[in-house]
């Protein structure tokens, strides 16, 4: 399939918007909207995207948008989708929220909406800090990263929201990256077809906050995946699966050295060897957990299969 077949030409994020040059979230949103098409309504909480949108009376989005307060996006989407259903109107209701609006202030509402399993796709574009207000630490800021509120490097550990969402037993959870647009578009398209609450978490590099030359956005996004920092995976009806190229990265030897990812970013400039080890360990633990989960999942599936076989006998 050619690129053009996979990515419709139609642009729904219009040019001349207010995103910074080289904006990872803008790139990701461009893909998301191409995957969803015009019958989509975005709910956007306070975030960079409230600014990317441009200012009244112009909007950079070619789809309907409801701009809402920080904590309220998931609940607003709940009401929106139920209201549309009540009136027999079909549309994709999609939340497009940053990491602060998702893992911090919006988490209560997100958890509630997920538990109620509304037919909503919630997409978190994660640039790992409050970039819109000027690079303050969020719950999604990784260990060691500089922000204006962690001037000596973040001591906390990045909140693992995809797995927290998976624990809600919603039908679909996925991670994605703008460096792998085909994977991203496939996931959004798949989510669109599943009824219920879908959660997609996109790691979206921010040249302004991560302190790098904007031309490197895709490269850095790619390295985040290739070093194993950001595994591409999906959890469909509870079943975890790695996606290419992360499928190969269960073997640590296949992962690129973490340093390659970090050294391109000014926010890690001060990182000590000790810090690097801590961060590396976190990544190794993450992969060990994924490995264990895949193994347990397989064992469970075998058992269920055997059990069914026995009952049949």
């Amino acid at each position, binding site marked *: 399939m050619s690129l053009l077949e996979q990515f419709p030409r139609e642009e729904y994020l219009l040019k*001349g918007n207010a995103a910074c040059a080289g904006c990872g979230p803008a790139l990701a949103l461009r893909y998301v909207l191409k995957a969803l098409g015009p019958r989509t309504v975005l709910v956007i909480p306070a975030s960079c995207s409230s600014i990317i949108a441009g200012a009244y009376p112009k909007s950079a989005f070619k789809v309907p948008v409801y701009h809402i307060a920080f904590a309220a996006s998931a609940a607003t989407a709940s009401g929106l989708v139920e209201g549309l259903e009540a009136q027999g109107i079909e549309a994709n209701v999609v939340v497009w929220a940053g990491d602060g609006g998702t893992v911090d202030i919006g988490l209560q509402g997100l958890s509630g909406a997920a538990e109620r399993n509304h037919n909503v796709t919630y997409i978190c574009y994660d640039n790992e800090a409050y970039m819109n207000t000027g690079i303050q630490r969020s719950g999604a800021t990784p260990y060691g990263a500089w922000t204006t509120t962690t001037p000596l490097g973040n001591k906390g550990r990045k909140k693992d929201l995809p797995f927290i969402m998976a624990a809600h037993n919603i039908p679909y959870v996925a991670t994605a990256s703008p460096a792998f647009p085909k994977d991203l578009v496939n996931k959004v398209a798949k989510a669109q077809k599943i009824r219920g609450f879908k959660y997609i978490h996109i790691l979206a590099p921010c040249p302004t906050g991560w302190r790098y030359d904007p*031309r490197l956005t895709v490269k850095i996004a790619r390295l985040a995946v290739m070093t194993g920092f950001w595994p591409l995976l999906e959890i469909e009806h509870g079943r975890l699966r790695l996606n290419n190229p992360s499928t190969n990265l269960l073997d640590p030897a296949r992962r690129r050295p973490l340093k390659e990812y970090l050294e391109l970013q000014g926010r890690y400039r001060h990182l000590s060897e000790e810090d690097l080890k801590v961060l590396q360990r976190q990544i190794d633990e993450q992969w060990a957990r994924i490995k264990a989960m895949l193994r347990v999942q397989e064992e469970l599936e075998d058992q269920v299969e055997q059990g069914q076989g026995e009952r049949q006998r």
Partner: protein
Amino acid sequence: MVELPVARPSVGAAGKTGNWRLFKPSIDYRKCIKCLLCWMYCPDGVISLSGKGLPVIDYEYCKGCGICAEECPVKAIEMVKEVEG
């Protein structure tokens, strides 16, 4: 009539963002293999395709981030300094 705070879709919601640019991507069409990766990776969607399938940059809105130059597999795009005036 109710004064509704609604904004309509428009190109250039933030103005002519081409003037944000310090460097300008320049495509060497002799090298271009029409892979369209530049089109795909452009965060601003300012690259369109000519009738011949060649990428064309809209300099009115290109912010000059340089992702296209970075991702071009045959190095057909070069970032050149904007000339003043």
